[in-house]
């Protein structure tokens, strides 16, 4: 284990750096004016750190926790500060650290003063603007720290605390920096999440009491025994499982607890939506893999058929609803409901191939959704509305926006050669292996995806060019760089996903065996 400066895990450093910088930017007034460059440099450094971590990662031991660090935290309650990553954790950390600088660059000029502020005093206005921007950067950096922490948590209690703490920056990012109806969306998001969080908290406490180990390291994930070994009745195990699962299903989000997402996506800024849907929602499916299955294997196996049906409903329902949307951001939100259906299906269907598919799906979807949210943001900021009906023939006016939207959309509809394909292919083939009829239902999602993406493209970008938007500027260099990075990632994941798969495949057998009741 490579030791860093103070004997800490490099993961701890990656968590601390953005958190400390966030505090500085927020609290030290002279730094506020430089908040955006500071945020960018910090997130770039964190990304570099994450890449260095990946380079130092031992791929041959991808199913073991690496860069681990364990320290006592609340021994009385069995909680430790334990961090470390296996292949999946590493991949998720890489996704999160890639998207943060992308979002900062994309939203560079996005934060402005509300119309109410501004009585002509330029200095005051500038100060207010700096303050607002500093808040934005600080929130994103705090969120980055928490995202790294949640994917690196190797302690159940730590995971829970971070899981809940993440709500705070997102709540403010939506509620302060969002659109006209932002408060409603932010509160809806918060209430949904808190409801899930409370269930999870109950389950965490319950796990502590029914578990065999109630010592100072009771919550350590790498030592925590599954409840199947503890002789706990299935009903108790099932209740605890549901506490975790419902929290994760809300986060993911799955049908029927998805309704917060379209509102949140509609009101949040594209950058917030990118982090929310691209990374944070993955904590739900990540939690299903690293907590639900290993801790409650019997309950997971018993609940799997129901969960699979809900996943199939999500795939089709999300697809159909996406077709019915007029608001671009809501549309993207519903495509995600459909995609999360695929991810959950792959996790619970009981095939190692499908599990591998679900795990790489989490990364691929993060990248393609980022592309869609951000380019839709670039378009709607210029066009003044998210209503697709207000646009027409934009391909003739803003070519680069049209092209990058289409590529991101094609990645989302799983066109081979782009990021979406390999994951969806693995989930479908793996599902077919164990449950052919489920696969045949799920594959309908492939046609729905073609419809919702191309219908949106048709409505916005084809037809006679809209006179209202004549002369609208195309992407500038900064925005092109954002889309360029994302599209490059989509292509790499499409054509050469092998390095990522090598990190994930070793874990899949274990996970799939948990669902099918086989021996890990």
């Amino acid at each position: 284990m490579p030791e860093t400066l103070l004997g800490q895990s490099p993961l701890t450093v990656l968590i601390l750096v953005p958190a400390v910088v966030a505090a500085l930017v927020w609290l030290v007034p002279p730094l506020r004016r430089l908040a955006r460059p500071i945020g960018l440099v910090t997130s770039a450094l964190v990304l570099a750190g994450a890449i260095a971590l990946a380079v130092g990662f031992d791929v041959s031991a991808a199913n073991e926790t690496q860069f681990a660090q364990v320290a006592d935290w609340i021994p009385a309650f069995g909680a430790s500060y334990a961090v470390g990553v296996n292949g999946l954790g590493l991949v998720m950390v890489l996704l999160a650290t890639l998207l943060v600088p992308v979002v900062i660059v994309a939203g560079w000029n996005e934060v402005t003063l509300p119309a109410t502020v501004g009585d002509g005093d330029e200095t005051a206005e500038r100060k207010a603007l700096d303050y607002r921007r500093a808040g934005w950067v600080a929130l994103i950096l705090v969120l980055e720290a928490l995202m790294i922490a949640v994917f690196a948590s190797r302690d159940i209690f730590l995971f829970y605390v971070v899981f809940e703490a993440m709500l705070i920056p997102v709540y403010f990012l939506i509620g302060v920096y969002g659109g006209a109806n932002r408060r409603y969306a932010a509160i809806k998001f918060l209430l949904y999440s808190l409801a899930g969080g409370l269930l999870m908290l109950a389950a965490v406490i319950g796990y502590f009491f029914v578990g065999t180990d109630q010592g100072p390291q009771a919550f350590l994930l790498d030592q925590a025994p599954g409840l199947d070994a503890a002789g706990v009745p299935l009903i108790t195990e099932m209740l605890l499982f549901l506490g975790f699962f419902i929290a994760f299903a809300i986060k993911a989000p799955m049908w029927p607890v998805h309704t917060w997402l379209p509102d949140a996506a509609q009101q949040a800024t594209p950058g917030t939506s990118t982090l929310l849907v691209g990374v944070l929602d993955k904590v739900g499916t990540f939690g299903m893999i690293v907590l639900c299955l290993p801790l409650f294997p019997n309950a997971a196996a018993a609940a799997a058929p129901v969960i699979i049906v809900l996943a199939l409903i999500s795939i089709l329902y999300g697809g159909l609803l996406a077709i019915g949307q007029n608001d671009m951001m809501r549309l993207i939100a519903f495509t995600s409901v459909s995609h999360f259906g695929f991810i959950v299906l792959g996790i619970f269907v009981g095939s190692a191939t499908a599990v591998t598919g679900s795990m790489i799906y989490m990364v691929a979807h993060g990248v393609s959704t980022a592309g869609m949210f951000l380019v839709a943001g670039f378009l709607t900021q210029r066009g003044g509305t998210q209503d697709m009906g207000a646009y027409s023939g934009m391909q003739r006016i803003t070519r680069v926006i049209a092209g990058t939207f289409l590529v991101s959309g094609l990645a989302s509809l799983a066109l081979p050669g782009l990021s979406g394909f390999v994951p969806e292919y693995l989930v479908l083939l793996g599902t077919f292996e164990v449950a052919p009829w489920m696969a045949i239902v799920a594959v309908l999602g492939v046609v729905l995806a073609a419809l919702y993406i191309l219908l949106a493209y048709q409505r916005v970008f084809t037809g006679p060019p809209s006179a209202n938007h004549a002369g609208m500027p195309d992407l500038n260099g900064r925005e092109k760089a954002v889309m360029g990075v994302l599209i490059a990632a989509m292509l790499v994941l499409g054509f050469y996903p092998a390095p990522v798969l090598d990190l994930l495949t070793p874990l899949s057998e274990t996970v799939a065996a948990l669902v099918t009741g086989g021996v890990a």
Partner: protein
Amino acid sequence: MSIDLAAILIVAVPLASAGVLLLLGRRSDGWGHWLGVLASAASAVMAFVILFGLLGRGAEDRAVDVHLFSWIPAGELDVDAGFLVDPLSATFLLLITFVGTLIHVYAVAYMEHDDDRRRFFAYLNLFIAAMLILVLADSFALLFVGWEGVGLASYLLIGFWNQRTEYAVAAKKAFVMNRVGDMGLIIAMGAMFASIGSVDFETVFAAAPELSEGWATAIGIALLIGACGKSAQFPLQAWLGDAMAGPTPVSALIHAATMVTAGVYLVVRSGAIFEASPTAQLLVVIVGAITLVFGAIVGCAKDDIKKALAASTMSQIGYMMLAAGLGPIGYAFAIFHLLTHGFFKAGMFLGAGSVMHGMNDEVNMRGFGGLSRFMKVTWITFGLGWLAIIGFPGLSGFWSKDKIIEAAFVGEGWQPWVFGMVALLAAGLTAFYMSRLFFMTFHGKARWNDGKNEAPGPEQHPHESPLLMTVPMIVLAVGSLGLGAFLAFGDRFFHWLEPVTGHAEHHDPVIPIPVIMGATVVLMLIGVLLAWRQYWASSVPLMPPTGSVLTRAARRDLYQDSVNEAVFARPGTHTVRTLTYADTAVVDGAVNGLGAGAVGLGERLRKLQNGHVRSYSAAMSVGVVLVLVIVLVARI
């Protein structure tokens, strides 16, 4: 140059060219089209390198597997990206790159006045690269990359003029219907993975003879669904007519010569699977036979020259599909017809484009007539294509179509009689509708406004197209004329394909071969004569006559769109609307209602929103701390 390197470059060059043209954008407008032509020509050179490379080897040694890289190493499913160069894929390489390059050259002139010509060539190059991946892939997974890649290129090119909404709709329709077929291909791969544990050709085809008939039938049917989508075969044919919205070079290259024949390639390539399931084979033949007649009937009624040609393409691919379903005896004939069809149909599409070029983009044949005097090269080259497709003795189509008709008569029981007669009668129909098209366009009285007659519409000045357009047409016409005889001579094409298609035992048809040939020629002549009487000798009305029930049905593509509309589109739209309403009203409402207390909490939270970020964060922090304290207290 080694075959390995040539196989990599043949794909890499057009792919790179497409990338350059798309990334440079407007900066490459001045020369982009020539880069596109060069890239395609370079691929054609590579195709010949590969051809001669293979010819230099012994017949049994003509399969080269080019390993590229480990693509999807996902444990149990482990897919390598690799190319398989063998006589079958090499045949396609030649067809795609040779015809493709001619069409690229043609398009330089055809698209000259389009602002977006460079983008057009980028898409054409993208198409070439994807199509080459499709035929070179050594696994179903990589084949699928090309398969959907050509679907994307087709989408982009059908919608090239998508500022017209109906063209954008046509493009989307093509992609979505293709995706319905692609579902079949994904299911087929799922079934292969479940039953064999692999999706690469070598493993799958080696294991195919051992498959249970149930699995073989399932995989076969699923593959057939995929083939139907891509090749516009019944019941997934409805997109092809609308696809004529694309610029004519696209129709020639993608929707006549290459992409739409990919379904036939898939069936022939997967022969081992179909041979393990007589049921699947029979279904392939039935689909082919239905489409053969369907397309021919529609072709008899269309007045739009491109749509008539599209119906003809459907019908001719029906021939190929029928042959491919007959098993090893038909594989080589299917590919042979595919090859000759690629030449003469592409030639005729380019001819149609040349006519449109000279007639202000008019496509209605009722507004043509007598054009042979004004565009001699177009007339002669088109004429050779026409003679080839109707199977005039000696020309390309004669050799290839005749073989299929003969093969259809081979077998036992009711099948040879039914399929043989369908194939035979369709030859007569083909002769009728193609002669109708040819006579209405080039012969009879001029029905366009030449400034002297009474014809409506703007005054037309039909003229021959420039050399860049006529030379490709001439080359393709030479193919229409001689390619069939050249390849049929000494059965050399069948020997060439034998390492892939296997050696077929010779069986005699249920009717003697000379009788079949004689009947084919007689039926063809009857078809031509009927068309001559109605569309050359007598005057063609400018407005289509009401016509019989069948004619009216054929004009509307046998109501394919009405059926799809009623069965899928309308119920689908209704479902979407209902669900969209219900999502807010019911699902969201229920979840909201479930947490009635939460709503109350929301109200209170709302009141707390006094606009100060700091007070929020304080409140939130207190909340989290409270949660923690409660937890700790509970423990202690």
